[in-house]
């Protein structure tokens, strides 16, 4: 159930216009304090019109992640496109095909995986720091800390993390790691980027990629729509997309423009501001407790009847 902008504003209206404002403000401030400077932040630009749907990235991803991967030829099977697929615990990225809605025969292929949000809802949700945002961009997972509560799955606006429900003892949350930790093995770029034979999956500094994306849009306004998905979605993501078709028609969620944690963290930190609200409540109840104490004669009467109890 996607909230459109109007609804989002209405929701924000309930929180109070002031809160909504503070919300955007704190959001902006937090952005400045993200781990690492914006300069360090790496990302990937996916140029959807350039994708030919060869699924080499799927193969490379599974191989690099150390899964039992089927032979490369099996990935040439195009019948998988009959259904929309989602990332699974054993395939962090999948390519889906969408027929061109304007009747043009050329279909669009969309690579789906974790977008490595700038302010990830999954990281904010995880209660034991099992998910963290690296200064260089990747959102990574530490199974040793994880409790398996799956709140990260509830929180992710893009419905990315997948769970190993079939593992009874050591299930993991599985999602794209942007090849964090394997980058050297893959020659300094994520495996899918290396595998892509087209000019479609491009790795670089997020700032540079944004510039590149907007350059492509202005150079080819006939090809691209003027919208870089991920520039602002869910507060911005390390992965960015270029498309010739509105993103809603390509299975993208219509994510709000604020990072989901902005509101929850505002509430959470509001409740705990310098510990004042809980302590104030404690004190207030303490005062009531003292003031409303029944007068001694009544207490004595009750003590006699043996009903004063803790």
């Amino acid at each position, binding site marked *: 159930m996607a*909230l459109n902008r109007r609804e989002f504003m209405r929701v924000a209206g309930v929180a109070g216009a002031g809160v909504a404002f503070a919300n955007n403000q704190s959001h902006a401030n937090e952005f400045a304090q993200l781990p690492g400077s914006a300069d360090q932040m790496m990302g990937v630009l996916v140029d959807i019109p350039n994708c030919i749907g060869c699924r080499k990235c799927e193969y490379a991803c599974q191989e690099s992640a150390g899964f039992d991967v089927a032979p490369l030829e099996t990935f040439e099977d195009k019948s998988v496109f009959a259904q929309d697929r989602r990332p699974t615990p054993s395939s962090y990225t999948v390519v889906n095909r969408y027929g061109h809605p304007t009747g043009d025969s050329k279909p669009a292929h969309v690579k789906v995986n974790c977008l490595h949000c700038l302010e990830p809802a999954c990281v904010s949700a995880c209660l034991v720091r099992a998910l963290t945002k690296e200064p260089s961009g990747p959102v990574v997972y530490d199974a040793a800390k994880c409790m398996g509560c*799956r*709140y990260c799955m509830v929180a992710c606006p893009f419905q990315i993390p997948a769970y190993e429900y079939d*593992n009874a003892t050591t299930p993991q949350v599985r999602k794209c790691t942007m090849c964090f930790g394997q980058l050297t093995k893959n020659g300094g770029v994520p495996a899918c980027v290396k595998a892509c034979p087209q000019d479609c999956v491009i790795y670089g500094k997020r700032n540079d990629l944004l510039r590149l994306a907007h350059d492509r849009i202005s150079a080819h306004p006939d090809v691209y729509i003027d919208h870089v998905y991920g520039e602002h979605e869910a507060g911005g993501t390390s992965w960015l997309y270029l498309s010739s078709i509105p993103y809603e028609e390509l*299975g993208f969620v219509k994510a709000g423009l604020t990072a989901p944690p902005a*509101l*929850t963290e505002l*509430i*959470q930190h509001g409740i705990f501001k310098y510990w004042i609200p809980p302590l104030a409540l404690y004190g207030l109840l303490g005062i009531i407790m003292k003031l409303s104490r029944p007068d001694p004669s009544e207490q004595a009467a009750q003590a006699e009847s043996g009903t004063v109890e803790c």
Partner: protein
Amino acid sequence: MLVHGPAKPTGHTLATPGVLALLALTVMGMGVAGYRLVFGLQAVTNLDQQHPWGLWIAIDVGTGVALAAGGFTTAALVHVFHRQRYSALMRPALLTAMLGYTFVGIGLMFDLGRYYNIWHPILPSMWQGNSVLFEVGLCVMCYLTVLYIEFLPIVCERFAGDDRYPRLGPVCAWVQRVVRKTMFLLILAGVVLSCLHQSSLGTLMVIAPSKVHPLWYTPILPLLFLLSAIAVGFPMVIFESIYASWSMKSKYEMHLLAPLARFIPVFLGVYLAFKIGDMVVRESYTHFAATSVTGALFASEIILGLVVPLALLLSARVRSSPRWLLIASLMVVLGVALNRVNIFLVSYQPPYAVKSYVPSVGEFVLTVGLIACLMLVYRVIVTYLPVLSSAPKAGTA
């Protein structure tokens, strides 16, 4: 004035058909629990990649915490606001809260993929202050500790005067003294911790604006959760008292329950006002379709769980009739339970779901087993420990 006698172990026999039925349900639940531990979540639940939370989170955790609210509301009434006449209700409410939260923890264990890491939130190196779930988890752990300490004197009371355990006597007396002295600190801590985690449980779903149905999604979810927890506290206490009297064939404590019930319409009214106000401000009624499942469930939650019991409880006749008071209280209890199920299950509409989530038989059996086990333990504890006090005989002072 009618005054309760001191709390005593009921000493009732445990060999009743009711107890046996609870035992059977518990054993079935344990079977499913064992199966889940050996074969994993997939083998038992209908959870999938789109629906990470199911019946166990909605009932065992979400509803369990809400319905254990009788503990802190009664503690506030009796110990903070010093309405001493209700003190006879304190021990059963405390026991329910203690068992309720214990079973929330046990239920959660079976849902966690890595249950053996359940203690991780205690480690400061893993503290994650931005996480709402972290706050809920830590508050619940602290509150459970407080509840156990509050319950200690009741256990001690049982053994302090017992000649069969001469060595225990002095220890018990010492524990009772220490806990009694610090009791006011514990009571206050319990109320504050409850307010914190009851509300934060509502903040949990605020992080998923694009998935929660707009009828339920509102940034004031934490406030609504707190208000509904407060509203359900006394109805739960009333329901338990009437049920306990009925099953032990003792007299109904109407001289306490009827006046206690006067508070409920006030709490329900405040909750209803915020719920309606939120709907008006957000214009969420535009998403209301009476014929849809979501619409019907939303409407039942408000009408059957809020408006009707509120109207009923305004009548003195309802409040003083055991049957009608039970009905009205149950409506509130079920209404709040439905609200939690609605928020954690019904309203959760993930964007790429291919099929909707319907709990499996195994999920139901485990949940029913946990509830049965809770009731069984309650029954055993009140049999051997001084929790329940007998209602006074009419006319005695």
